[in-house]
Protein backbone atom coordinates (compact mmCIF):
# COMPACT_ATOMS: atom_id res chain seq x y z
CA UNK A 1 0.00 0.00 0.00
CA UNK A 2 1.35 3.45 -0.94
CA UNK A 3 1.56 6.40 1.41
CA UNK A 4 0.37 9.72 -0.01
CA UNK A 5 1.80 12.72 1.79
CA UNK A 6 1.02 16.38 1.12
CA UNK A 7 4.03 18.42 2.16
CA UNK A 8 5.26 22.04 2.23
CA UNK A 9 8.83 23.18 1.69
CA UNK A 10 10.05 26.00 3.93
CA UNK A 11 12.83 28.16 2.56
CA UNK A 12 15.07 30.66 4.27
CA UNK A 13 15.22 33.81 2.13
CA UNK A 14 18.08 36.01 3.21
CA UNK A 15 17.37 38.96 0.94
CA UNK A 16 13.77 39.74 -0.11
CA UNK A 17 15.00 41.62 -3.20
CA UNK A 18 17.04 38.70 -4.49
CA UNK A 19 14.39 36.17 -3.43
CA UNK A 20 16.94 33.38 -3.48
CA UNK A 21 15.88 30.81 -0.96
CA UNK A 22 17.49 27.80 0.62
CA UNK A 23 15.29 24.87 1.62
CA UNK A 24 15.54 24.46 5.38
CA UNK A 25 12.47 22.53 6.48
CA UNK A 26 9.63 20.28 5.38
CA UNK A 27 6.17 20.42 6.96
CA UNK A 28 3.25 18.04 6.57
CA UNK A 29 -0.05 17.19 8.21
CA UNK A 30 -0.89 13.52 8.23
CA UNK A 31 -2.98 11.17 10.34
CA UNK A 32 -4.34 13.96 12.50
CA UNK A 33 -1.08 15.65 13.45
CA UNK A 34 1.64 17.91 12.15
CA UNK A 35 5.10 16.70 11.20
CA UNK A 36 8.34 18.52 10.49
CA UNK A 37 11.97 18.05 9.63
CA UNK A 38 14.28 21.05 9.89
CA UNK A 39 17.90 21.86 9.24
CA UNK A 40 20.11 21.23 12.25
CA UNK A 41 17.52 19.30 14.24
CA UNK A 42 18.62 15.80 15.14
CA UNK A 43 16.08 14.38 17.57
CA UNK A 44 16.10 16.66 20.59
CA UNK A 45 19.51 18.06 19.65
CA UNK A 46 20.00 21.26 17.67
CA UNK A 47 23.16 21.90 15.68
CA UNK A 48 22.92 25.63 14.89
CA UNK A 49 26.07 25.58 12.74
CA UNK A 50 24.14 24.28 9.73
CA UNK A 51 21.80 27.25 9.67
CA UNK A 52 24.58 29.68 10.55
CA UNK A 53 26.55 28.39 7.55
CA UNK A 54 23.91 29.66 5.11
CA UNK A 55 24.95 33.32 5.11
CA UNK A 56 26.41 36.08 7.31
CA UNK A 57 22.88 37.22 8.17
CA UNK A 58 21.90 33.69 9.10
CA UNK A 59 25.00 33.49 11.27
CA UNK A 60 23.79 36.48 13.27
CA UNK A 61 20.24 35.09 13.46
CA UNK A 62 21.02 31.95 15.42
CA UNK A 63 18.81 32.95 18.34
CA UNK A 64 15.88 33.67 16.03
CA UNK A 65 16.40 30.32 14.31
CA UNK A 66 16.18 28.62 17.71
CA UNK A 67 12.80 30.30 18.15
CA UNK A 68 11.81 28.93 14.74
CA UNK A 69 12.85 25.45 15.81
CA UNK A 70 10.61 25.84 18.83
CA UNK A 71 7.85 26.88 16.43
CA UNK A 72 8.46 23.88 14.14
CA UNK A 73 8.25 21.62 17.18
CA UNK A 74 4.95 23.23 18.14
CA UNK A 75 3.64 22.45 14.66
CA UNK A 76 4.06 18.76 15.42
CA UNK A 77 1.64 19.28 18.33
CA UNK A 78 -1.10 20.62 16.07
CA UNK A 79 -4.02 18.19 15.83
CA UNK A 80 -6.45 20.33 13.81
CA UNK A 81 -5.80 20.60 10.08
CA UNK A 82 -7.25 24.13 9.87
CA UNK A 83 -4.69 25.34 12.41
CA UNK A 84 -1.93 23.70 10.41
CA UNK A 85 -3.17 25.27 7.17
CA UNK A 86 -3.35 28.69 8.81
CA UNK A 87 0.21 28.38 10.10
CA UNK A 88 1.41 27.44 6.60
CA UNK A 89 -0.62 30.27 5.03
CA UNK A 90 1.17 32.73 7.30
CA UNK A 91 4.49 31.38 6.04
CA UNK A 92 3.29 31.70 2.45
CA UNK A 93 2.60 35.40 3.00
CA UNK A 94 6.16 36.06 4.11
CA UNK A 95 8.55 37.43 1.52
CA UNK A 96 11.71 37.02 3.54
CA UNK A 97 13.03 34.99 6.42
CA UNK A 98 11.07 31.74 6.69
CA UNK A 99 8.78 31.31 3.70
CA UNK A 100 6.53 28.43 2.65
CA UNK A 101 7.80 28.41 -0.91
CA UNK A 102 6.12 25.45 -2.53
CA UNK A 103 4.12 22.33 -1.83
CA UNK A 104 3.74 18.89 -3.28
CA UNK A 105 2.36 15.44 -2.86
CA UNK A 106 4.52 12.39 -2.72
CA UNK A 107 3.36 8.82 -3.14
CA UNK A 108 5.66 6.45 -1.36
CA UNK A 109 5.77 2.71 -1.24
CA UNK A 110 8.24 -0.08 -0.58
CA UNK A 111 9.56 0.63 2.87
CA UNK A 112 8.14 4.14 3.27
CA UNK A 113 4.90 3.21 4.96
CA UNK A 114 5.50 5.22 8.10
CA UNK A 115 5.08 8.97 7.92
CA UNK A 116 8.33 9.53 9.83
CA UNK A 117 10.19 7.54 7.17
CA UNK A 118 8.50 9.59 4.46
CA UNK A 119 9.48 12.84 6.21
CA UNK A 120 13.08 11.63 6.48
CA UNK A 121 13.05 10.74 2.80
CA UNK A 122 11.66 14.14 1.76
CA UNK A 123 14.08 16.01 3.99
CA UNK A 124 17.01 14.09 2.54
CA UNK A 125 15.87 14.81 -1.00
CA UNK A 126 14.88 18.44 -0.56
CA UNK A 127 17.19 19.98 2.01
CA UNK A 128 20.87 20.14 1.20
CA UNK A 129 22.99 20.03 4.33
CA UNK A 130 25.66 22.74 4.14
CA UNK A 131 29.22 22.20 5.26
CA UNK A 132 30.13 23.65 8.61
CA UNK A 133 33.45 25.49 8.59
CA UNK A 134 36.00 24.54 11.28
CA UNK A 135 35.59 27.98 12.89
CA UNK A 136 31.83 27.54 13.09
CA UNK A 137 32.16 24.00 14.44
CA UNK A 138 34.45 25.40 17.13
CA UNK A 139 31.98 28.19 17.94
CA UNK A 140 29.07 25.74 18.26
CA UNK A 141 31.02 23.28 20.35
CA UNK A 142 32.26 26.05 22.65
CA UNK A 143 28.68 27.22 23.24
CA UNK A 144 27.71 23.63 24.02
CA UNK A 145 30.63 23.18 26.45
CA UNK A 146 29.82 26.41 28.33
CA UNK A 147 26.20 25.33 28.55
CA UNK A 148 27.10 21.84 29.79
CA UNK A 149 29.55 23.35 32.29
CA UNK A 150 26.64 25.53 33.52
CA UNK A 151 28.97 28.51 33.56
CA UNK A 152 26.60 30.49 31.33
CA UNK A 153 24.11 30.49 34.20
CA UNK A 154 26.67 32.15 36.49
CA UNK A 155 25.81 35.84 36.75
CA UNK A 156 29.50 36.73 36.86
CA UNK A 157 30.21 35.06 33.52
CA UNK A 158 30.80 37.43 30.61
CA UNK A 159 30.07 35.49 27.44
CA UNK A 160 31.81 37.93 25.11
CA UNK A 161 35.17 39.57 24.52
CA UNK A 162 36.19 41.45 27.64
CA UNK A 163 38.97 43.89 28.36
CA UNK A 164 40.36 44.23 31.87
CA UNK A 165 42.46 47.28 32.64
CA UNK A 166 44.99 46.99 35.44
CA UNK A 167 46.89 49.99 36.74
CA UNK A 168 50.06 50.07 38.77
CA UNK A 169 49.51 51.40 42.29
CA UNK A 170 52.93 53.02 42.23
CA UNK A 171 52.61 54.63 38.84
CA UNK A 172 49.03 55.16 37.70
CA UNK A 173 50.16 55.96 34.18
CA UNK A 174 51.19 52.33 33.77
CA UNK A 175 48.18 50.55 32.37
CA UNK A 176 48.10 46.86 31.47
CA UNK A 177 45.22 45.73 29.26
CA UNK A 178 44.16 42.10 29.35
CA UNK A 179 41.85 40.77 26.68
CA UNK A 180 39.84 37.61 27.19
CA UNK A 181 37.38 35.89 24.88
CA UNK A 182 35.28 35.10 27.98
CA UNK A 183 35.66 35.96 31.64
CA UNK A 184 34.29 34.84 34.97
CA UNK A 185 34.68 37.77 37.36
CA UNK A 186 34.49 37.57 41.15
CA UNK A 187 36.68 36.57 44.05
CA UNK A 188 38.75 34.14 41.97
CA UNK A 189 38.26 35.10 38.34
CA UNK A 190 38.81 32.76 35.40
CA UNK A 191 40.07 34.20 32.13
CA UNK A 192 39.42 32.26 28.93
CA UNK A 193 40.97 32.65 25.52
CA UNK A 194 40.24 30.61 22.43
CA UNK A 195 42.60 29.28 19.82
CA UNK A 196 41.06 27.67 16.73
CA UNK A 197 43.55 25.19 15.35
CA UNK A 198 41.46 23.54 12.63
CA UNK A 199 41.62 25.18 9.24
CA UNK A 200 44.07 27.89 10.37
CA UNK A 201 47.57 28.41 8.99
CA UNK A 202 50.60 27.77 11.16
CA UNK A 203 51.53 31.44 10.91
CA UNK A 204 48.13 32.58 12.12
CA UNK A 205 48.13 30.03 14.96
CA UNK A 206 51.58 31.18 16.11
CA UNK A 207 50.56 34.84 16.06
CA UNK A 208 47.40 34.14 18.06
CA UNK A 209 49.30 31.92 20.51
CA UNK A 210 51.85 34.70 21.14
CA UNK A 211 49.11 37.24 21.81
CA UNK A 212 47.27 34.92 24.21
CA UNK A 213 50.47 33.91 25.94
CA UNK A 214 51.31 37.57 26.55
CA UNK A 215 47.82 38.18 27.96
CA UNK A 216 48.06 35.28 30.39
CA UNK A 217 51.59 36.26 31.45
CA UNK A 218 50.42 39.81 32.14
CA UNK A 219 47.36 38.54 33.99
CA UNK A 220 49.61 36.52 36.28
CA UNK A 221 52.24 39.29 36.61
CA UNK A 222 49.65 41.84 37.66
CA UNK A 223 48.08 39.37 40.05
CA UNK A 224 44.72 39.35 38.34
CA UNK A 225 44.77 35.61 37.63
CA UNK A 226 46.57 32.57 38.89
CA UNK A 227 48.01 30.19 36.27
CA UNK A 228 45.44 27.51 37.07
CA UNK A 229 42.68 30.01 36.24
CA UNK A 230 44.05 31.06 32.87
CA UNK A 231 42.27 28.74 30.45
CA UNK A 232 43.25 28.25 26.83
CA UNK A 233 40.40 26.64 24.93
CA UNK A 234 41.40 25.00 21.69
CA UNK A 235 40.05 22.32 19.43
CA UNK A 236 41.42 19.69 17.12
CA UNK A 237 44.76 19.39 18.91
CA UNK A 238 47.20 17.29 16.89
CA UNK A 239 50.73 16.15 17.47
CA UNK A 240 52.11 19.02 15.37
CA UNK A 241 50.58 21.51 17.81
CA UNK A 242 52.24 20.07 20.90
CA UNK A 243 55.39 22.24 20.70
CA UNK A 244 53.39 25.40 20.22
CA UNK A 245 51.10 24.54 23.14
CA UNK A 246 54.09 23.77 25.36
CA UNK A 247 54.64 27.52 25.84
CA UNK A 248 51.44 27.55 27.94
CA UNK A 249 52.54 24.82 30.33
CA UNK A 250 53.41 27.19 33.22
CA UNK A 251 50.93 29.92 32.54
CA UNK A 252 47.62 28.29 31.61
CA UNK A 253 45.46 25.22 31.59
CA UNK A 254 45.03 23.98 28.03
CA UNK A 255 41.69 22.32 27.27
CA UNK A 256 40.49 20.70 24.07
CA UNK A 257 36.81 21.62 23.76
CA UNK A 258 36.08 18.52 21.70
CA UNK A 259 37.06 16.29 24.61
CA UNK A 260 34.08 15.06 26.61
CA UNK A 261 35.61 15.91 29.98
CA UNK A 262 36.15 19.62 29.21
CA UNK A 263 32.74 20.81 30.40
CA UNK A 264 33.23 18.95 33.67
CA UNK A 265 36.71 20.49 34.11
CA UNK A 266 35.35 24.01 33.62
CA UNK A 267 32.49 23.33 35.99
CA UNK A 268 34.90 22.10 38.66
CA UNK A 269 37.17 25.11 38.17
CA UNK A 270 34.19 27.40 38.57
CA UNK A 271 33.18 25.81 41.89
CA UNK A 272 36.73 25.77 43.28
CA UNK A 273 36.69 29.55 43.14
CA UNK A 274 33.46 30.09 45.03
Amino acid sequence: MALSLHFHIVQYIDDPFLSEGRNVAVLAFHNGRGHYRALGVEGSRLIPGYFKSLSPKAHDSEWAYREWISWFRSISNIRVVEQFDEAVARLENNNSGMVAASEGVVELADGYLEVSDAMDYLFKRLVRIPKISPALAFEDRLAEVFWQAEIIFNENFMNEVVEVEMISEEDESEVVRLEFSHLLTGYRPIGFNTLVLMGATQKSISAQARRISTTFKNAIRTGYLQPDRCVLLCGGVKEKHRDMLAQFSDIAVVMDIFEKSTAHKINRLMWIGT
Partner: protein
Amino acid sequence: MSANYKIRSIRKKSLPGVTAPVACSLDAILKFDSAESPYCVYSELVALRLAQTFHIPVASGVLTMTGSGEAYASIELGSPGLRLPDLSPPQYANAASHYAEEAAALVVFDIFIGNWDRGSNIKTSLVTSHLPIFQGFDHEHGLLAVESEPLKSIERLARQELIVQNHPFFGHISHTFATKWAERISQSQDEMIRECCELKRPLRTVTTDMQANLANALCMRKQVLPRIISDNMKIIRSWR
Protein backbone atom coordinates in the same frame (compact mmCIF):
# COMPACT_ATOMS: atom_id res chain seq x y z
CA MET B 1 46.53 39.66 43.93
CA SER B 2 49.85 41.45 43.69
CA ALA B 3 50.01 44.64 45.72
CA ASN B 4 51.46 46.50 42.78
CA TYR B 5 48.41 46.50 40.51
CA LYS B 6 44.72 47.09 40.92
CA ILE B 7 41.76 46.69 38.59
CA ARG B 8 40.71 49.94 36.93
CA SER B 9 37.92 48.56 34.77
CA ILE B 10 36.34 45.41 33.39
CA ARG B 11 34.25 46.03 30.33
CA LYS B 12 33.15 44.38 27.16
CA LYS B 13 35.32 45.33 24.26
CA SER B 14 33.41 47.84 22.15
CA LEU B 15 33.90 49.92 19.07
CA PRO B 16 35.40 53.39 19.37
CA GLY B 17 32.98 56.20 20.24
CA VAL B 18 30.97 56.69 23.39
CA THR B 19 27.71 55.32 21.95
CA ALA B 20 29.27 53.31 19.10
CA PRO B 21 26.73 54.64 16.58
CA VAL B 22 26.22 52.75 13.34
CA ALA B 23 23.86 53.32 10.43
CA CYS B 24 21.12 50.74 10.15
CA SER B 25 17.84 49.93 8.48
CA LEU B 26 14.92 48.21 10.13
CA ASP B 27 12.57 45.69 8.58
CA ALA B 28 8.93 46.72 8.73
CA ILE B 29 5.58 45.69 7.30
CA LEU B 30 3.84 48.54 5.48
CA LYS B 31 0.08 48.58 5.91
CA PHE B 32 -2.32 50.57 3.75
CA ASP B 33 -6.03 51.33 3.78
CA SER B 34 -7.88 49.08 1.37
CA ALA B 35 -11.43 48.22 0.36
CA GLU B 36 -11.38 45.33 2.81
CA SER B 37 -9.87 47.39 5.61
CA PRO B 38 -10.62 51.08 4.93
CA TYR B 39 -9.47 52.41 8.34
CA CYS B 40 -6.43 50.24 8.80
CA VAL B 41 -3.83 53.02 9.01
CA TYR B 42 -5.80 55.06 11.56
CA SER B 43 -6.72 52.02 13.67
CA GLU B 44 -3.13 50.75 13.74
CA LEU B 45 -1.77 54.17 14.69
CA VAL B 46 -4.32 54.83 17.44
CA ALA B 47 -4.01 51.30 18.84
CA LEU B 48 -0.25 51.88 19.11
CA ARG B 49 -0.72 55.26 20.82
CA LEU B 50 -3.19 53.80 23.31
CA ALA B 51 -0.98 50.77 23.97
CA GLN B 52 2.06 52.93 24.58
CA THR B 53 0.05 55.15 26.91
CA PHE B 54 -0.99 52.18 29.06
CA HIS B 55 2.28 50.24 28.55
CA ILE B 56 0.60 47.35 26.76
CA PRO B 57 3.17 45.16 24.95
CA VAL B 58 2.52 45.76 21.25
CA ALA B 59 4.96 46.02 18.35
CA SER B 60 6.28 49.49 17.62
CA GLY B 61 5.25 51.26 14.46
CA VAL B 62 5.33 54.57 12.73
CA LEU B 63 3.17 56.60 10.40
CA THR B 64 5.02 57.03 7.13
CA MET B 65 4.48 58.61 3.72
CA THR B 66 4.48 56.44 0.60
CA GLY B 67 3.61 56.99 -3.06
CA SER B 68 0.05 55.91 -2.20
CA GLY B 69 -0.25 58.32 0.69
CA GLU B 70 0.09 57.73 4.40
CA ALA B 71 0.76 54.19 5.54
CA TYR B 72 1.52 52.48 8.83
CA ALA B 73 4.86 50.73 9.16
CA SER B 74 4.86 48.01 11.78
CA ILE B 75 8.43 47.29 12.81
CA GLU B 76 9.42 43.64 12.52
CA LEU B 77 10.68 41.70 15.49
CA GLY B 78 13.60 39.36 15.22
CA SER B 79 17.08 39.30 13.88
CA PRO B 80 18.14 40.99 10.63
CA GLY B 81 16.94 38.65 7.89
CA LEU B 82 14.91 36.42 10.18
CA ARG B 83 11.83 37.76 11.90
CA LEU B 84 10.32 35.77 14.73
CA PRO B 85 7.48 33.34 13.96
CA ASP B 86 3.89 34.21 14.78
CA LEU B 87 2.69 32.29 17.80
CA SER B 88 1.19 28.91 16.92
CA PRO B 89 -1.86 27.52 18.78
CA PRO B 90 0.16 24.88 20.68
CA GLN B 91 2.36 27.71 21.99
CA TYR B 92 -0.48 29.82 23.47
CA ALA B 93 -0.41 28.26 26.93
CA ASN B 94 3.38 28.33 27.13
CA ALA B 95 3.52 32.00 26.09
CA ALA B 96 0.83 32.95 28.61
CA SER B 97 2.74 31.11 31.31
CA HIS B 98 6.13 32.66 30.36
CA TYR B 99 4.64 36.15 30.08
CA ALA B 100 1.70 36.06 32.51
CA GLU B 101 1.51 39.82 33.08
CA GLU B 102 1.95 40.72 29.40
CA ALA B 103 -0.62 38.16 28.25
CA ALA B 104 -3.21 39.53 30.68
CA ALA B 105 -2.44 43.09 29.57
CA LEU B 106 -2.95 42.12 25.94
CA VAL B 107 -6.27 40.39 26.62
CA VAL B 108 -7.61 43.42 28.50
CA PHE B 109 -6.35 45.81 25.83
CA ASP B 110 -7.95 43.76 23.04
CA ILE B 111 -11.23 43.86 24.93
CA PHE B 112 -10.83 47.61 25.40
CA ILE B 113 -10.30 48.34 21.70
CA GLY B 114 -12.66 45.57 20.53
CA ASN B 115 -9.92 43.67 18.70
CA TRP B 116 -11.68 40.38 17.96
CA ASP B 117 -8.91 39.12 15.65
CA ARG B 118 -5.87 38.57 17.88
CA GLY B 119 -5.41 34.99 16.64
CA SER B 120 -1.73 34.22 16.20
CA ASN B 121 -0.72 37.88 15.87
CA ILE B 122 1.80 37.73 18.66
CA LYS B 123 5.59 37.50 18.58
CA THR B 124 7.37 36.02 21.56
CA SER B 125 10.71 34.58 22.45
CA LEU B 126 10.18 31.30 24.24
CA VAL B 127 13.66 29.75 24.21
CA THR B 128 15.89 32.85 24.28
CA SER B 129 15.86 33.45 28.00
CA HIS B 130 18.20 36.45 27.94
CA LEU B 131 16.03 38.27 25.42
CA PRO B 132 12.44 38.43 26.65
CA ILE B 133 10.09 39.43 23.82
CA PHE B 134 6.32 39.53 23.91
CA GLN B 135 4.49 41.83 21.51
CA GLY B 136 1.09 41.82 19.89
CA PHE B 137 0.69 43.19 16.40
CA ASP B 138 -2.03 43.80 13.84
CA HIS B 139 -4.88 45.87 15.27
CA GLU B 140 -6.74 46.71 12.09
CA HIS B 141 -9.85 44.84 13.25
CA GLY B 142 -10.23 46.90 16.40
CA LEU B 143 -11.46 50.46 16.99
CA LEU B 144 -13.17 51.69 13.79
CA ALA B 145 -13.25 48.20 12.27
CA VAL B 146 -15.05 46.34 15.05
CA GLU B 147 -18.05 46.41 12.73
CA SER B 148 -18.21 46.85 8.97
CA GLU B 149 -19.02 50.56 9.37
CA PRO B 150 -17.15 52.99 11.61
CA LEU B 151 -20.27 54.51 13.21
CA LYS B 152 -21.54 51.08 14.17
CA SER B 153 -18.08 50.26 15.56
CA ILE B 154 -18.13 53.40 17.70
CA GLU B 155 -21.65 52.63 18.95
CA ARG B 156 -20.66 49.08 19.85
CA LEU B 157 -17.52 50.18 21.68
CA ALA B 158 -19.59 52.56 23.78
CA ARG B 159 -21.79 49.70 24.96
CA GLN B 160 -20.89 47.52 27.93
CA GLU B 161 -20.18 44.57 25.72
CA LEU B 162 -17.27 42.10 25.60
CA ILE B 163 -17.01 42.09 21.75
CA VAL B 164 -14.00 39.72 21.86
CA GLN B 165 -15.47 36.24 21.99
CA ASN B 166 -12.27 34.33 21.19
CA HIS B 167 -8.72 35.05 22.18
CA PRO B 168 -5.57 32.91 22.24
CA PHE B 169 -5.10 33.66 25.93
CA PHE B 170 -8.64 33.03 27.08
CA GLY B 171 -8.32 30.27 29.62
CA HIS B 172 -4.65 31.04 30.26
CA ILE B 173 -4.57 34.31 32.23
CA SER B 174 -5.03 35.05 35.90
CA HIS B 175 -8.01 36.87 37.37
CA THR B 176 -5.66 39.08 39.39
CA PHE B 177 -3.66 40.33 36.42
CA ALA B 178 -6.75 40.86 34.26
CA THR B 179 -8.39 42.90 37.00
CA LYS B 180 -5.22 44.88 37.57
CA TRP B 181 -4.93 45.89 33.89
CA ALA B 182 -8.61 46.70 33.61
CA GLU B 183 -8.31 49.02 36.64
CA ARG B 184 -5.21 50.60 35.23
CA ILE B 185 -6.90 51.50 31.94
CA SER B 186 -10.08 52.52 33.74
CA GLN B 187 -8.23 54.97 35.95
CA SER B 188 -6.54 56.79 33.08
CA GLN B 189 -7.62 60.33 32.34
CA ASP B 190 -10.08 61.01 29.51
CA GLU B 191 -7.66 63.58 28.17
CA MET B 192 -5.03 60.94 27.52
CA ILE B 193 -7.45 58.84 25.48
CA ARG B 194 -8.55 61.90 23.50
CA GLU B 195 -4.93 62.74 22.75
CA CYS B 196 -4.41 59.22 21.42
CA CYS B 197 -7.51 59.26 19.19
CA GLU B 198 -7.73 62.87 18.01
CA LEU B 199 -5.01 63.73 15.54
CA LYS B 200 -6.29 67.30 14.97
CA ARG B 201 -6.54 66.56 11.27
CA PRO B 202 -8.24 63.97 9.08
CA LEU B 203 -6.19 60.86 8.41
CA ARG B 204 -7.09 59.49 4.99
CA THR B 205 -10.87 58.83 5.22
CA VAL B 206 -11.10 59.23 8.99
CA THR B 207 -12.54 62.67 9.74
CA THR B 208 -11.87 64.66 12.91
CA ASP B 209 -15.51 64.08 13.94
CA MET B 210 -15.07 60.33 13.70
CA GLN B 211 -11.90 60.62 15.77
CA ALA B 212 -13.71 62.65 18.46
CA ASN B 213 -16.62 60.19 18.53
CA LEU B 214 -14.25 57.27 18.90
CA ALA B 215 -12.50 59.06 21.79
CA ASN B 216 -15.88 59.59 23.50
CA ALA B 217 -16.79 55.93 23.07
CA LEU B 218 -13.48 54.78 24.50
CA CYS B 219 -13.78 57.17 27.45
CA MET B 220 -17.12 55.56 28.25
CA ARG B 221 -15.75 52.08 27.66
CA LYS B 222 -12.77 52.53 29.94
CA GLN B 223 -15.06 53.42 32.83
CA VAL B 224 -16.97 50.17 32.47
CA LEU B 225 -13.96 48.06 31.51
CA PRO B 226 -13.50 46.47 34.98
CA ARG B 227 -17.19 45.59 34.91
CA ILE B 228 -16.93 44.10 31.39
CA ILE B 229 -13.98 41.99 32.56
CA SER B 230 -15.63 40.80 35.78
CA ASP B 231 -19.00 40.10 34.11
CA ASN B 232 -17.27 37.98 31.47
CA MET B 233 -14.61 36.36 33.62
CA LYS B 234 -16.16 32.97 32.96
CA ILE B 235 -15.52 33.36 29.21
CA ILE B 236 -12.11 34.94 29.69
CA ARG B 237 -10.92 32.21 32.01
CA SER B 238 -12.33 29.29 30.08
CA TRP B 239 -10.34 27.52 27.39
CA ARG B 240 -11.99 27.36 23.97
